[in-house]
Structure formats: structure tokens, C-alpha cells
């Protein structure tokens, strides 16, 4: 099953490589990994999307918890949470009909066109990963020049929070 694991880690140069190294050394999957400093500059917040059986996910969370740089960990998938990912897409957009079609599709998905040339659009879109996938599918084959995805981030619903 797919799991979204959120971590607070020491904001140290080695922390990211320890976490990435753990996944490669133990053969765990990483679908995506995002990381940035939090409002407390000594901490980074990381979101890892991974897949595996219950047993593997249990090992992943335990092994992550064992790393000295990991301050706190939460498997979001255990509760109610919101997931978002951001994507930029550069799309081939030549001719009036095609440009109108892309604009129409983008409206439906609430994607914003953030840059335009005479032959391309650059689009920004936020949502759950599935929505991003769906948007890409609607675009005509061969017209996607480039995609940039942030990887997923998550936050728990309600008053609970992952803080120290």
C-alpha cells in the first residue's frame, strides 16, 4: 500500500543522505521525497511517499525513527490528512484551436497558465497526485514538453499537528 510519512529532522547537512541511504540500503521504495526548512531553522520537514506491505512500512517507520537525525515521525496514512503536490508543465501550444483547448482543459483542472510564448504554455497545477496525473492524461499525446513535480506534501486535518 501507498503511505505518506512525514518527518521532522535535524536541519543538518547529513540528514537527507542518511534518510535516502536508508531507503537504498534496505531496498525500500521511494515514490517521492520533499524537504525544506521549517519556521524553526534547526528543523526540516520532510514528506516521503513510499509503498510496501504493512510489514515493510512498519520496518520503514522504525528504521527511520532509529536515525539520530529524525526528531519525530508520523505515518499520515493512519489518519485523516490532506495531500497536495505541485506541478509545472510546459506544453506545445501552436495554432488557435489548440491554444483554446489547453486553456479550456486548464480551467477545468484549475490550472494556471503562468508563462506564454507563441508556441508554448507553461502551466501550474496543484492537487493530489491523481489529479495531476489526470490533467496530464487529458493533454494530447506528444504535446507535453516538460513536467516538473514537487512530490507530495501532507498535513493532518484538524487540531493535531506534527510539531516538537
Amino acid at each position, binding site marked *: 500500500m501507498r503511505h505518506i510519512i512525514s518527518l521532522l529532522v*535535524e536541519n543538518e547537512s*547529513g540528514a537527507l*543522505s542518511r534518510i535516502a*541511504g536508508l531507503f537504498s540500503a534496505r531496498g525500500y521504495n521511494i515514490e517521492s521525497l520533499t524537504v525544506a526548512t521549517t519556521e524553526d531553522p534547526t528543523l526540516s520537514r520532510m514528506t516521503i511517499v513510499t509503498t510496501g506491505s504493512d510489514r515493510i512500512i512498519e520496518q520503514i517507520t*522504525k528504521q527511520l*525513527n*532509529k536515525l*539520530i537525525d*529524525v*526528531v519525530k515521525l508520523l505515518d499520515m496514512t493512519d489518519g485523516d490528512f490532506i495531500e497536495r503536490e505541485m506541478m509545472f508543465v510546459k506544453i506545445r501550444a501552436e495554432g488557435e484551436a489548440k491554444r483554446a483547448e489547453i486553456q479550456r482543459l486548464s480551467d477545468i483542472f484549475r490550472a494556471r497558465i503562468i508563462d506564454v510564448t507563441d508556441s508554448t504554455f507553461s502551466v501550474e497545477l496543484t492537487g493530489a497526485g491523481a489529479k495531476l496525473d489526470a490533467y496530464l492524461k487529458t493533454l494530447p499525446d506528444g504535446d507535453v514538453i516538460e513536467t516538473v513535480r514537487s512530490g507530495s506534501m501532507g498535513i493532518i486535518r484538524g487540531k493535531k499537528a506534527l510539531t516538537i
Partner: protein
Amino acid sequence: MELSGSEILVQFLKDEGVEYIFGYPGGAVLHIYDALHRQDDVKHILVRHEQGATHAADGYARATGKPGVVLVTSGPGATNAVTGIATAYMDSIPMVVISGQVPSAMIGSDAFQEVDAIGCTRPCVKHNFLVKDINNLADTLKKAFYVATTGRPGPVLVDLPKDITAPQIKIPYQFPKKIKMRSYNPTVKGHPRQIKKAVELLLSARRPMIYSGGGVVLGNAANELREVTRKLGFPITQTLMGLGAYPGTDKQNLGMLGMHGTYEANMAMHQCDVLFAVGARFDDRITGDTSKFCPHARIIHIDIDPASISKNINVDIPIVGEVKQVLADMSKLLAQTEQKSDAAALDAWWKRIGEWQAQDCLAYDKSSPHIKPQSVIESLYKVTRGEAYVSSDVGQHQMFAAQFYPFDEPRRWLNSGGLGTMGFGLPAAMGAKMAFPDADVACVTGEGSIQMCIQELSTCLQYDLPVKIICLNNRYLGMVRQWQEFFYEKRYSHSYMDALPDFVKLAESYGHVGIRVENPADLDSVMEETFAMKDRVVFLDVITDQTENVYPMIQAGAGHNDMEISPEHKKNLGAVNPEGELA
């Protein structure tokens, strides 16, 4: 007090109570060596290879329970240390390794003797630190010792760029007595409800089995284990790493389990209905095929490391905590509870175990014209009255030592169980001898393994470390040969040690005593002679039977009840029928 980085390091080691460091100098640590030169509280042991330094520190740590400390230079010094760090990591041995690094400003420039020591060691340390600011040095060192020695212990590396240790830069120093780390708080006490459930399950067992591991040794919980085991009256077996935690000669002890465990221990594992795992991690050399592991048992597991629980084998009652504390709590509960174990069932169980024991699975051919490796260990046991510190290398000799030297005390048996590092034995014996100069210290080795760290014979002379090297010389990489005999139709590909040195002369050229023995009749007297030379290193080159194999053996894919047994053991079958499964 204003000190330079090097002086802070040395003063810190003193304040931390470090007696010995094992090391080797080089450019990046010269400032540190200069500071070492100006004092004599912290004694430095100059090894002959950085691998030797790590194994010696490791042996010291295993024998004493105190952290081993290592000092190496950057680049090749650090990479040479990696094998020993990984060895300590796999066996959870507390160790602090200080590695020199090129000056901060040159890091990343492919400077002379630069290697990313943090990156190289990351997968085989509990944690590592790069010191970027001299003001963090003392705290970082304190953290390193704290992390290495608490929770599930392990090696920690501190990488020290040369500028941090420069004599010109001095700052005030104070020993950090305590350190807090927000992200590191190992659990100490086990959950009372889990402990209660465990005691209830234990007392309800009809065919119980206790399986204890290296965690009991590391956690200094041998006394608590003995108390609980005796109160329960249950059979107990130990892993290779756990030998000595429960007395090897005690009647409740069934010996080692696993790939080369005793027949009775493995059969009892297979048939038990409650398994009590104490500080053991269900390693693949223990479990064999996990789908056939303890098919009838409900399992209780005490471990300090939550990640060890249900990693390889699902357990029914996990207890996370320090094994010493948890066992003490259990012992108290056992004294209070009204519940009694089923005496009749236990009697029947012991009777069954007695039948397995009666087969004498470790029997070997005593009429051979060649010296049998087993008899060497028996002789060693006799001569040292079972009281020696015994290190070993890796191979058949290691298994024979584990099978034929029943340790009655913990921390006497020093071997690389997890990583299986050939070359461990001699330096580890040095570390133990350093700590216990008056005790007998033996290194049981093979002619293959000893050559992987033989250079340390020179260190033994310099520091007067009269260890005894008992080399089971079978002119083969014996364990490799055994697998080739069993699984590759005797195609002995590159397992023959041709062109061996004359170990007697080699020992002599290092300034030691060398003795060769080939005749079984001479074995005991030569062993006596070896240990009578209290203040000499003796290299006893025992020419052993080349064809001997280690039995019993659980082969890949087999369960505990499916062992390859020795020809001598087979002769003892007949009288008993142990194979039938119990309901």
C-alpha cells in the same frame, strides 16, 4: 582553561575515563598525536593496520563493556577502519572512532588523502559527526560517547578536519557532564502490561524454550537471565553472540542453536510451544527458513531496539526495553504470582530433551591418527579451566570453539558473529589482554584468517600483550571447503591455502614463541606448555584433520528439525526415536 582542539580531544578522553586508544598516525591527525605526546593518562596503542585498531578497540569493548576508542588519519586511515567499524556495527559494540580529515577549507577539493569518511561509514555506524566548529567539539565528543554506549550500542565516528585541531586556535574548555539530544531517547523500561502478559504465557507453556542472544551480554543482564531461567526451570539456548550469558555448563543449558547449533537446542526450538527470545534478533543463521521457524510456538521477544521486533519473525508479545530492567521486573512478578507452571508437562518435555541430548550430537572420531579440531578446543578448555577470554576468527574453527568451549561467564567469548570478519581474532584478543593483563587470553584461529591481521603480532611485542594463538591449521579455507563438499560436489575452487608460511618461524621472527604440533598424543602437553609461558606470545600451530566438517548443520531452506548430522552422531541414533513431531 584555554585549549586547542587537539588538547580538548585528549583532555575530553581523560575526563570521559578513556584508558586506551588504538590508533595509527598520519598527516591529518598529527596535531592530535602531538597533544597525545605531552601526556600519559590516555595510553595510545600503535597498531600495525587500522583494521587492527578497530578490532582491538572492539575486543576491549566486548571484554570490558566500556566503549573502545580508535584514532585514525584521513583517507586510507579511515577506509582501512571501515571493516572494523562494520564489524562492531553488526554486533552492536560501543565504539568511538576519531578520524582525521583534511582542513575544512579543502573538503570537497579531492585534496591529498581526502575521503568522505562520513559517507563511507554512514551505512555501518550508529551515527557519525563532522565537526565544523571547534566550539562544538567537546559537545560532539560527548554526544558520540553517549550515542555509542546507550540504547542499542554501536560505533560512532567523529570526523575532525585538521584546522579544528590546530595548536594556534584555543578556546575555553569544560567537560560536558551531560548531554541532551531531542531526537535520541532510548526506551529503558518495558511496558508493565506486556511483561505481565509474558509471564502468564510463560507459566502456561507445556514445552517452553528460552532463546537468548548478544543483547543479554551487551545489556549486562546475565545475572537477571540466570535468575529468571532458574525460577522458570526451562531449557535455554544461546546464539553465537549470547554464549556465556547463561553458564555453558549448567544443566538447563542446551548449548548454541542455529546453523551449527546442537541437535537438542534446534529440536527443542522446533517443538516448543512458547518461545522466549531475550536480546536476540532472529538472524537468518538462527532462524533458517523463516516459514519453518518454531511452527508450534507463541513468541515473546525482549529487545532494546523496536526495529528488531517482528523484523524477520512475527512475535506475539513484544517488550521494548533494557533487557536487564525487563528481566528484573519479570523476576519480581514471577515471585509474586500465584500461577504455577505445569510440572507434569515440563517433566515430559525435559524427558524428551534428554533423549535428544543422549544422541551426543557433537561426538567425533577420537581414534583418528590426525588431530581433530574439536579435541584442540577441548584441550584448550581443560588447560584454561574454562576461564579464558577466547577470541576467534571466522570459519570452522570459530564454530568448533563455540561448540566445545562452554563459557560460564559473559564477555569471555569474543567473535565477529554478525559480519563474520576474518582477521578479527588476533587484534580482538589484544584488546582483551590490554584490559585483563592477568587473564589467559586465547585467539582461536585458522591458517586463513590469521593471515588477515597477522601484522598485529608486532603490536603484541611492543606492548607486551602475551596472547596465545591457537591456530587450527587445516590447510584449507575450511568452512568454504565444507560448503563446496556439500553443495558443489567437492569442487574445491580456491579454498586450498597453498604456500603457507612456516608459522613457527614467522612467530619467532616477530619475537614470539612458535610451536607446531601434529600428533594427537602431544596435544595436551603442548597446550599446557603454551599457557605455562605466561609472559610470551605463543603461536601454537596445530596441524589438524583436513577433512573434518562442522556438525550439526542446518542447510538452506531447512527447518530446525532437519539437520545434517555427523557420522559419529548417526551411530548414536537407533536407540532413540526423536524425529516424531509432538502434537
